[in-house]
């Protein structure tokens, strides 16, 4: 597959060349082995998790929609902008076979998740290493300037290709009619291409900022933007989706048209982006970002000298970024609200379905569905915020603070308050964006408060996410990344639950599934109060654990 060369984005695979020209890549192979060894649990877990999720979904669409009439009816119900915004281009609906369902419903999801996996892998093996100072040690050995980035990209490529191969080999093996080898190969290749592309995006992001978390955030913002663009394009049936590489990959139409050519621009973009990452990396020093740091104030303002002041200061960069991103994401979805009603107005069946949901209008149900997506993106912020104390601890920056008059609860409490406030603030930003754009596009001023309120209804779910992350951190600090399970589960279940007709209990397991689907459904305070209590209990648990354990010192 051509993907191997693209993965590293540089003239890696040039076996015939003299050694000298690859001096900047010296040591790549050794580093790759090392990176793979460090990820020997993570990568198989990701690949198997995503692979099995897909195979299980393919099996269940076969079981849930056995007849052509079943498939026609789900195709019919999926034609609304709300579902198209969540899934993919409407062309799949033309002949909604099991394979088409897979392409329509899962390719976008897999592109996002493979992208997430690749971003995390690349930033972990590049910027996180630099941030910890370990990179300096590695670079001082006989290791070329580009070797670390090349090895990180190759590690991501191994994971992406493994996932692609698992899909290509596994799907035809299920015995579901229509899931042929050619389509499966394309399906796997498109998934792998998405992973490679976002690995390359991460390769650029890690050059720009000094912090691994910020770099991941930056790359994930690009991923989110690509997803949002294709959503806007597919829901509005305009050309916008062509501005998003995820849109391109979804237009390969595996099992339907089996178009290979959209992979080309995606891989070319990956190669170009990866090359840009390598080029940028030579313009900066090890450990530094692209911009030189400027001098700052010689003294601290009084508020900084409190645990909360310190935490807010440490959180504010990422928070600002997320607030802006969610404002834009909300505005993007909100601007589609006006169309939602006019599109497909005469599809009676769809209206009936919505009526059963309790939605007054198409616009309301569209808003409810997209707000869930926005809220889950907000949960990504909640998790990132609660990874902060862990980073402070392992970097050795918690130690001097905890040796002052700040108690353990005070220190973690500062981060908790910052995360609780921040995760609420990002929802508010999303709600304001959604509400403003929604009010403008529908010409209904009353939509603004309703939509802001609907977004804020997810706040207790955000707090549970914060509480869960904190509880893991308090008791099992090394397992803190498990906090990613909350948004990942909410995303997957929100995406697949309706399609696979999964029991509603599975959806309720996620805090986001508990929140009433405003504005389509009626407000219900009970689950919100319950979530708040759960969050409070988790936070109490977190503090109890953190007070009890050793600090993880270096």
């Amino acid at each position, binding site marked *: 597959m051509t993907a191997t060369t693209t993965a590293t984005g540089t003239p890696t695979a040039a076996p015939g060349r003299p050694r000298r020209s690859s001096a900047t890549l010296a040591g790549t192979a050794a580093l790759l082995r090392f990176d793979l060894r460090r990820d020997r649990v993570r990568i198989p877990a990701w690949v198997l998790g995503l692979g099995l999720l897909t195979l299980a979904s393919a099996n269940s669409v076969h079981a849930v929609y056995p007849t052509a009439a079943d498939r026609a009816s789900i195709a019919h119900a999926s034609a609304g902008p709300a579902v198209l915004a969540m899934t993919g281009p409407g062309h799949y609906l033309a002949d909604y076979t099991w394979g088409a369902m897979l392409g329509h419903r899962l390719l976008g999801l897999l592109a996002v998740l493979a992208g997430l996996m690749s971003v995390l892998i690349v930033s972990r093996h590049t910027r996180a290493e630099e941030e910890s100072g370990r990179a300096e040690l590695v670079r001082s050995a006989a290791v070329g300037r580009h070797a670390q980035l090349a090895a990180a990209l190759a590690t991501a490529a191994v994971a992406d290709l493994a996932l692609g191969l698992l899909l290509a080999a596994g799907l035809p093996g299920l015995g579901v009619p229509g899931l042929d080898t050619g389509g499966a190969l394309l399906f796997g290749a498109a998934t792998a291409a998405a992973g490679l592309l976002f690995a390359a995006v991460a390769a650029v992001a890690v050059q720009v900022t000094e912090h691994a978390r910020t770099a991941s955030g930056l790359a994930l913002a690009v991923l989110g933007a690509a997803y949002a663009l294709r959503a806007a394009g597919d829901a509005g049936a305009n050309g916008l989706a062509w501005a998003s590489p995820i849109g391109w990959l979804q237009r390969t139409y595996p099992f339907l048209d089996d178009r290979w050519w959209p992979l080309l621009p995606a891989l070319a973009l990956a190669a170009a982006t990866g090359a840009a990452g390598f080029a940028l990396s030579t313009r900066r020093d090890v450990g530094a970002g692209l911009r030189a740091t400027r001098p700052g104030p010689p003294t601290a303002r009084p508020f900084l000298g409190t645990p909360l002041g310190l935490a807010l*200061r440490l959180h504010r960069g990422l928070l600002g970024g997320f607030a802006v991103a969610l404002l834009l994401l909300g505005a993007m979805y909100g601007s589609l609200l006006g169309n939602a009603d006019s599109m497909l107005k005469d599809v009676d069946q769809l209206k009936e379905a919505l009526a059963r949901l309790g939605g007054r209008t198409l616009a309301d149900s569209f808003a409810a569905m997209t707000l869930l997506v926005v809220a889950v993106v907000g949960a990504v912020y909640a998790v990132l915020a609660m990874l902060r104390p862990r980073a402070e601890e392992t970097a050795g920056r918690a130690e001097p603070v905890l040796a002052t008059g700040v108690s353990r609860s005070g220190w973690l409490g500062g981060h908790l308050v910052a995360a609780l406030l921040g995760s609420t603030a990002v929802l508010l930003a999303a709600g304001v964006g959604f509400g403003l754009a929604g009010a403008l596009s529908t010409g209904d001023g009353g939509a603004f408060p309703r939509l802001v309120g609907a977004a804020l209804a997810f706040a207790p779910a955000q707090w549970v996410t914060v509480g869960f992350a904190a509880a893991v951190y308090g008791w099992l600090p090394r397992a803190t990344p498990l906090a990613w399970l909350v948004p990942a589960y909410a995303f997957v279940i929100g995406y697949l639950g309706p399609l696979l007709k999964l029991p509603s209990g599975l959806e309720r397991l996620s805090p986001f599934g508990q929140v009433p689907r405003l504005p389509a459904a009626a407000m219900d305070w009970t689950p919100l109060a319950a979530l708040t209590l759960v969050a409070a209990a988790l936070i109490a648990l977190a503090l109890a654990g953190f007070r009890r354990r050793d600090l993880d010192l270096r």
Partner: protein
Amino acid sequence: MTKAITLSGLRKTFGRTAALDGLDLTVETGEVHGFLGPNGAGKSTAIRVLLGLLRADGGSARLLGKDPWHDAVELHRRLAYVPGDVELWPNLTGGEAIDLLSRLRGRLDRRRRDELIERFDLDPTKKGRSYSKGNRQKVAIVAALASDAELLLLDEPTSGLDPLMEVVFQDVVRQARGQGRTVLLSSHLLDEVEKLGDRVSIIRHGRVVQTGSLGELRHLTRTTVEAETHRPVTGLETLEGVHGVRTEGARVRFAVDGAHLDAAVRRLGEAGLRSLVSHPPTLEELMLRHYGDELAANGHPVDGEAAR
């Protein structure tokens, strides 16, 4: 005198490593106590137990009369700490970090802070990442010494400081001692501790192997002597307490037990001294006295030569 620190039979294990293996340590109020030991001896671990950052698995620890785990916050207001590895916040300036740590401890004495910044020649407007190792160390030292803490826990505070700054540091610690503060100073370097310390504890494999004033320890140890004489020196080997004599023409080098230094130098004088250099025992030499056998068994040179 009351005790500032009392550790007895302190134990701390990480998995299968016993970092502290029955550590006993007493630090009197108002003294500068040197805490010496090789890498991995358990110095940082002991200090972190004293700070309540780690929980001991056994034994007892008292700090200023209180329990370091349960009364951590109350104790932290009365002490200041310089970690061995100073990590600063990349997006905060050194000045902000100093103020932050001082305020979190309690009160910020701005006059004293500015004076220390001046003396240590520190630029407080730089951001964390742009400081060199020594300058990061200075940030932590200034933050600790600008406080009015009655106890200073300093974990290898001078690692990374240049010789001029080491002098400033020693001066500041002496000043602190003059004000009646207690200092626990961990180090690899005997001469640093020697310049400041009243008493020394040597720790190895998580246990204190020697405690006492430097005079007492020195007496127990060997001084290395290098001399050049007019005539060849004879009969040095036969003197009591002299070890490892090596002669190269007019130069001679040997180690001598503290108690027998006088006799050995007399013998050199008889041969007409041209130059004389004597090294006080280094930490290695102090250690070698206790562990020479073990090192020799591992194939390391053990003689006085091993030092320096």
